[in-house]
């Protein structure tokens, strides 16, 4: 595809998507939906291609090469793993047959539980331990810098009170009942301030990102219109 053709198609599709801003008018509303359906079809096709070329095909090529092996078990084990996985995948097609539901559920169980195990190990070693360590560790050179010490203290208090805010033990007591102490309410309020601050920053950052993309698109439309 030539540069001009790419620019022309981009121009038309950008206008079609931006037609959403005009509302659900007859004819105009159709343009946005057509663009979205084109997007869905294309995304499905690219996903299929990437799944095949990025996952299935490399594994298929690997098992055909007897000199390579995924594990220490050798190439013949790779063949067994590959075809077991393909069988598992095809077993998912048996879902509509009620008497074989246990078989498809067992395949789902393997997939979900392996995913859950990776999530547990990842959360422990990638997030929980490093973040807790970073939160409770006081830098060595703080003795001379009161501002840095205060910042570290704010981060520590903010993290702990915000975590306390996530704690829903008092829900059964319907709000500010006798089970919720003044100290607990105070911690929750401080934690809420930090949560609101973090969410506001994320919101503002998302606005800035989308504004940058919008200005790039509008600039492209004007540039194309000028040529």
């Amino acid at each position, binding site marked *: 595809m030539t540069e001009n053709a790419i620019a022309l198609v981009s121009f038309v599709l950008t206008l079609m998507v931006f037609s959403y801003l005009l509302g659900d008018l007859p004819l105009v509303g159709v343009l946005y939906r*057509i663009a979205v359906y084109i*997007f869905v079809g294309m995304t*499905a096709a690219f996903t299929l291609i990437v799944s095949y070329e990025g996952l299935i095909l490399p594994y298929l090529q690997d098992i055909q090469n007897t000199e390579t092996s995924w594990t220490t078990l050798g190439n013949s084990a790779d063949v067994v793993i590959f075809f077991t*996985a393909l069988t598992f995948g095809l077993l998912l097609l048996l879902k509509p047959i009620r008497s074989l539901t246990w078989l498809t*559920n067992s395949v789902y169980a393997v997939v*979900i*539980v392996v995913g859950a195990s990776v999530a*547990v190990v990842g959360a422990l070693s990638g997030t929980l331990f490093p973040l807790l360590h*970073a939160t409770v560790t006081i830098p060595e050179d703080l003795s001379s810098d009161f501002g840095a010490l205060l910042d570290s203290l704010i981060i520590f208090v903010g993290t702990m009170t915000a975590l306390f805010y996530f704690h829903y033990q008092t829900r059964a007591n319907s709000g500010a009942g006798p089970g919720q102490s003044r100290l607990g309410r105070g911690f929750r309020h401080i934690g809420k301030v930090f949560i609101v601050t973090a969410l506001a920053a994320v919101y503002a950052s998302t606005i800035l990102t989308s504004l940058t993309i919008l200005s790039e698109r509008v600039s492209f439309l004007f540039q194309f219109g000028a040529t």
Partner: protein
Amino acid sequence: MGPAGMAAFVAFVVGVTTILSLLLGDNPALFGAGPGSDELARRLALPGDVLLRLVAIVIAVSIVIGIANLLFVHVGRLARGKIYSAVMLASFAFTMYWSITNKGDASLLEAVQVPIESALAALLFVSLALGGSRVMQKRADIWGLLFVALVLIVLLGSLPLAELAPVKAWSDWLMAIPVSAGARAILLGIALGSVVAGVRALLGQDRAYRG
């Protein structure tokens, strides 16, 4: 053992094997400095490696099945006269044809996918700006006020104007200290939630795989 029990048993065995293999495998330091520690660590990593590869291939096959299902659904919709499904199917067929006949050519991606994605992301600005303006209408309390004020400080702090240098200093401090604390708490909450959800799935308490 009933069908549900069978799936739960498979889940437990596979889950515990994977977790132990991921935690203990490929880490010879855990087993001292003995001559067999390397080999033991490698052996312990093996079940996790095999299961991860197995699941990666199953997921790839599931994606293919999912896309086939999407196509069948749209063929059915087309048969009922839904014309947009024809657009989707034509787009899918054309992309497949283009990708097979023009291997390695990314111009279709540049001409169609990137502009539509960018334009949709640009539309997000309108939704976010409208949403932000409605916060004070729907929630006129201290938290709504705090949220809008902080959003404005961060937005104003991003402007390259010398007159707004104090606001930029405030914004930088906010991002470095309170936002960092809040984000850490949110990430820790997500991590704790992931661990709890994962352990519940392993123990068969949360049988998402019952279907």
